[in-house]
């Protein structure tokens, strides 16, 4: 599903701490990156949820996966 990516919000996030500027379509890339990361998060969470034989993804599933994910998507 294609939703309108909140470009403004993303830009806000990017520029929070620094004064650095954002290129023209860079926020689109940020959007892309966000989607990819989110997708990975969801995948991992889903796997974890399946482990517990629950069809629903619950909070603890996500939390357990988050830390590992954050570490992996460093750069």
């Amino acid at each position, binding site marked *: 599903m294609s939703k309108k990516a909140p470009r403004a919000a993303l830009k806000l996030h990017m520029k929070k701490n*620094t004064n650095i500027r954002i290129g023209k379509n860079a926020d689109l890339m940020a959007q*892309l990156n966000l989607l990819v990361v989110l997708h990975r*998060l969801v995948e991992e969470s889903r796997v974890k949820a399946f482990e517990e034989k629950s*069809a*629903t*993804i*619950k909070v603890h599933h996500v939390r357990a996966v988050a830390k590992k994910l954050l570490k992996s*998507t*460093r750069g």
Partner: protein
Amino acid sequence: MAENSATNVRRSMRLKNTPGLESPGSALRHRLKKKLHESASSSPLPSPKRPRSAVANTKPPVTAPSPVYDEDMTTRGLLRGIIQMETEASLLMSGQPALQKSEPNPAESSAGERTEGLSGVELSDLTLNTEPLTHVVRGLSRKKPQHAFSVSAFEEQFNQLPDNTEDTSHVFHKGDVSQAKGDASQDLDLSSGSKSGLNLTLKTPFVEKRIERAGLQRKVSNRRLQSVDAFDEAVQRCLEQGPNQEHSVFQDGKTLEDSSWQKFTLGLSDVTELYVQSKKDDTMGPSAENEREHEPERASDIPDSEPLIQEEKDHEMESQDEEEVVPSSQDDVYVSAEDDIVLAPTQAMTESLPKSHDAELQDREFVEEVEIGNVVETEDQEVLEIEDDSVEEVEDESAEEVEDESAEEVEDESAEEVEDESAEEVEDENAEEVEDEEVVEAEHENIDTSQYLERITRRAHRSEGGGAVLGIPGTTRVTKSFGAGLNPREKDLLDFVDEGRERLQDILDEEREPLGSPEFPQLHPAAELSTPEQRSQQHEASLAEEDVPELAEDNDAQEEPNQSEEELMDSEPANHSPEFPQDVEEEEEEDDDDDALSAELSMKTPAFVRQKRVFASRTAQTTPTVLKEVNAGPAPQVAKRAPRQKRQTGVDVLPKSYVMSVFKHFAKTKVASDVYPAINEILKKYFERLADDLEAYATHAKRKTIEVEDFELLMRRQGFVTDTTPVNILIEKYLPMEYRKLLIPVATSGNKVIPNQRR
């Protein structure tokens, strides 16, 4: 072995005409060999060995069985045969039965009948030839005793063969079978083989692999099923038993409470509905009874919720019938102390001591319901009777629960006296008086019960205490409602009572925080303080009609803990006074101070519903509430920060709708909505890191703006983009069309490239 062979031979001889072989043993061997080969060739799934072996075996049998036989006779051949047999055997249905069948069958088939069991054939061969093989081949040892079955089994299989062979032969036998069909025995073999093949084919290779474990597998599944069923049953039992037993469900019972609460509400809803429909509904009685019935089951589950709800209902419900029914039902069904306590305060006034029910708070619910029923049924004439009954019951229950039976009895007696007096007067006023008396008594009882409740709580019977407490105020209110024209008053009184209950509950139930209404805390101290006061007051007021000012005072006192009970008392006497409407109004007005009460007063259902909600919110301390709080948190913060910061950092994370939609879309399974805050946190951290990294990249490139290539580098480092997955692919994958266009240069007609590229 010789013996075995001999026996086999004999059997084979019996079963079938011996070919023109020299010796029965050799003939047997030949047949077995043939079958072995044929089955091997016929079996569809067999390993490559089979086709080869089948081919190899089929050829020799066709041409010269003896050579084959000779080959088979060799150790290698025998082993091969064993393996083939075994595999086939495994292929066959379930291991053991098939094996059994196959085992005996081969023996028989050797005699001329086809047997699917190659193992049998092997066995015969093996037995004839080599002893060690028998050990190797499983089931060989078993086969002998099982030979008896072979015939029947074989026959059965034989009968089924024609059906199967046709089907399977085409599919499985790749010509080898067809070749092997030359002889009748071969046909049989084929049929059996096909059948086995059928079995084999029908069954995926899985079966082959698992044949040995088939039994285990099956057993496991069976066990699981049973366990599941048993578990369900056990669970149900536990649930059923749970409410009956006084578990510390109070704390644990979110689920229980919910369930019970739901039940309670259902019951209550029925009551309310009934009430709405008609004041005097006989249905009310039964419904109340039903409710009561539910109560015992749910007992101890929802101590607070129910009382509160009941209280509300009590206010709203005015049907004497219920009261009547309630007392009867109470007497009959609910002997629980809770019920009694609950009933007692309301009805204690009028009635003699209620039955001496076990002071178990389990029946709190019942009591509460009863009270509600009482409330619903509160109608002048019958009130007295009902009240008396209820009072008696309530008193009894309370007495039992609190262990101060004497005190209760005393109160009951007083109540009785009051009731008696009121009973004489059937008029509304009388009813009112009675109610007042009842209320007073109820208050007394409340006091006692509250005390008892306190003690109970000390005992760690929170649920009970709560129930008892609730019961008291409820009952009082109920009694109030008894008066015909006291509907509004009743509400007020009930409100008071409910408050009292609530307060008491709060005292008792630590968990029951005053989410619902500020009254609760007041109730607690009020209950404590008022009890002694109430007693005195009750005694005084029991027989005296108080004027409006009293009510007013009471109303004011509502908010004050001490006065809470007093109000009840005052309200009661006020009810007695003919100026009920005025009192009611005053009470209502004053009650308005109390959110719940005022609501109740003004509107029955809303108050009831409100309390319900309040109670529900209190009881259901689950994530939804948490979420609400969480969600509500940032909002107020935002509002507060508005003047300060234009940007609300607290809510900086991406919009929930967007995030959740993306999540759900990716997840393809249900996603709990409370994951959003967690995701928010994660994303926040991620964004921070992201920004830092990008900044570093840009700085490294000696640029001051973050560009697309920075992102590309980031993706690569994150591992999303590799040599095999270019960035553009990701772009196309995730981003919507319009964005894609911006990022990826697209060549259009006219030698244009979009977006415009100046390079």
